């Protein structure tokens, strides 16, 4: 296997006295790595550390083989880094072009003309070249999300950290994003968090599941799905052993949990495996149909 481009070892990070990450170790290689986990699991904290925005309380960070602890090295990492935070507020009075141009300046693109060409290029990549001169307040939510992604692509970074890039997008936009991100994943390292397990299953060669500040699974999506093999079945009634069950359009129940001996198994999906991994403890306490 290639050498990892993102290595977070023994990371501890707390906000005041609330721990967000407890001794978390996370590794990513070139390609797309997905981060899955419930709200508050520490995904955003982990991505902010990987984007050099936040320093961990304890642990070692290596990004593109470099340690961001020293000032000069951190600059070197940031020159090869694109970061899309979970919510990018964009100055409403900026035009789309102005916004990306502003970030391009912060990315040390000093020369005016070549900077403008780069801004033009990334706006084209996310399909916003037509609205470059529109003010941000006149753009739709999906367009703003694409605009936020555009700034992350400036300078063709080697490491892309994307915190829920597809949230708030309609299905067509989401598929377009998928197309774009999968192209970006060729030869670069993309870290991606999402609540949409379909997106992750479609895009990622590697998935990490984060739960209460711990990595509880790391591996290819197929391996994660395989953990739910024999735990998903169909029945005519809501099954008593199910952690969760729902009636599907064909009138049958799809159950996830501990099957009865005569169960009719169906192929599990990523979200089934995720559910079993993350919610088992909390839901089994509720129990019963």
């Amino acid at each position: 296997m290639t050498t990892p481009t993102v290595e977070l070892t023994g990371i501890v990070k707390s906000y005041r006295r609330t721990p967000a990450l407890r001794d978390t170790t996370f590794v990513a290689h070139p390609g797309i790595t997905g981060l899955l986990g419930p709200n508050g699991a520490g995904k955003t904290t982990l991505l902010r550390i990987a984007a050099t925005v936040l320093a961990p309380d304890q642990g070692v960070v290596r990004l593109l083989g470099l340690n961001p602890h020293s000032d000069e090295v951190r600059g070197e990492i940031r020159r090869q880094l694109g970061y899309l935070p979970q919510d990018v507020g964009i100055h409403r009075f900026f035009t789309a072009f102005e916004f990306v141009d502003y970030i391009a300046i912060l990315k040390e693109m000093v020369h005016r003309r070549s900077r403008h060409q780069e801004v033009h290029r990334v706006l084209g990549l996310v399909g916003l070249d037509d609205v470059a001169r529109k003010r941000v307040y006149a753009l739709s939510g999906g367009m703003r999300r694409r605009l936020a992604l555009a700034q992350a692509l400036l300078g063709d970074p080697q490491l892309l950290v994307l915190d829920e890039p597809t949230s708030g997008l309609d299905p067509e936009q989401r598929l377009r994003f998928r197309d774009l991100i999968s192209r970006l994943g060729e030869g670069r390292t993309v870290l991606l968090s999402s609540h949409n397990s379909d997106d992750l299953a479609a895009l990622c060669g590697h998935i990490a599941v984060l739960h209460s500040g711990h990595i509880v699974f790391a591996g290819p999506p197929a391996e994660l799905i395989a953990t739910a093999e024999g735990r998903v079945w169909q029945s005519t009634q809501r099954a008593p052993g199910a952690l969760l069950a729902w009636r599907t359009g064909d009138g049958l129940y799809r159950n996830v949990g501990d099957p009865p001996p005569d169960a009719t198994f169906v192929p599990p999906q990523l979200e089934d495996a995720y559910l079993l991994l993350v919610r088992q403890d909390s839901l089994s306490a509720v129990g019963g149909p």
Partner: protein
Amino acid sequence: MTTAWHVDPRLARRYADGAMDLALATSVEAHLVACASCRDVIGAVVPTDRLDSIWDGLAAELDAPRPGLVERFLTRLGMREDTARLLVTTASLRLSWLTSLALVLGFAALTAGSGDRGRLLFLTVAPLLPVAGVAAAFAGPLDPVRDVAAAAPYSRFRLILLRALAVLATSIGFAAVAGVLVIDEGWLAVGWLLPALALVSTTLALSARFDPVHAAAAVGLVWVMVVWSHAPLRQVSFAAFAPPAQLVYLLVTIAAVIVVVAARTVFDYDRRSR
């Protein structure tokens, strides 16, 4: 129209590659305007990717923001174009902010005309305005791209200093005009200047550890208490602006600047537990 001279293939190639000097290229272009056959000759040899990149460059320049009056003024003064851009995008340097600044100062100046109590109010408010401006220039909720900027290579410490200086300069300019207009005793009219520097630098120093808005609020509160504790209900005192107090502000400023410089990496790489 007929001319004796035409662009030969060798010349066309040099023109298409952009390898021709300006004088010759200009005369070729002048000829092209009039000669359709030469346009065809050159059009055939210009590589499409070069045309595309020229076109992209043109489109990029058309979309690019046109520098405003202030921005052009700053670059005229010798400031780098990208630095000027970073300054004019500061929230607390926008027209709306400056307008409210002028309004607050205007009201404070009006009350200053109504006697000692009013003058003390003006002197209290004048140094608070740059504090609010500096906090607004880089506070979390007021700087929406904070995280994006934090992950960018441009030094956040440099950006904060740059904006703090610009905010300080504009609000001090405003307050200086108002002060000279409403307060006739010479030393008192500029008595708020050192407090302003002390308050702003203390706010920056505290921002290394705390949220800038909280830092600004705390600094502002302490300032109001310092000024008005000398002025019990009946009596107005300008003790907080007398020379001994001014010396304290100077020392506070120096100490705070030392803290800010020492803590500069904190601004660049967030180690706080917020």
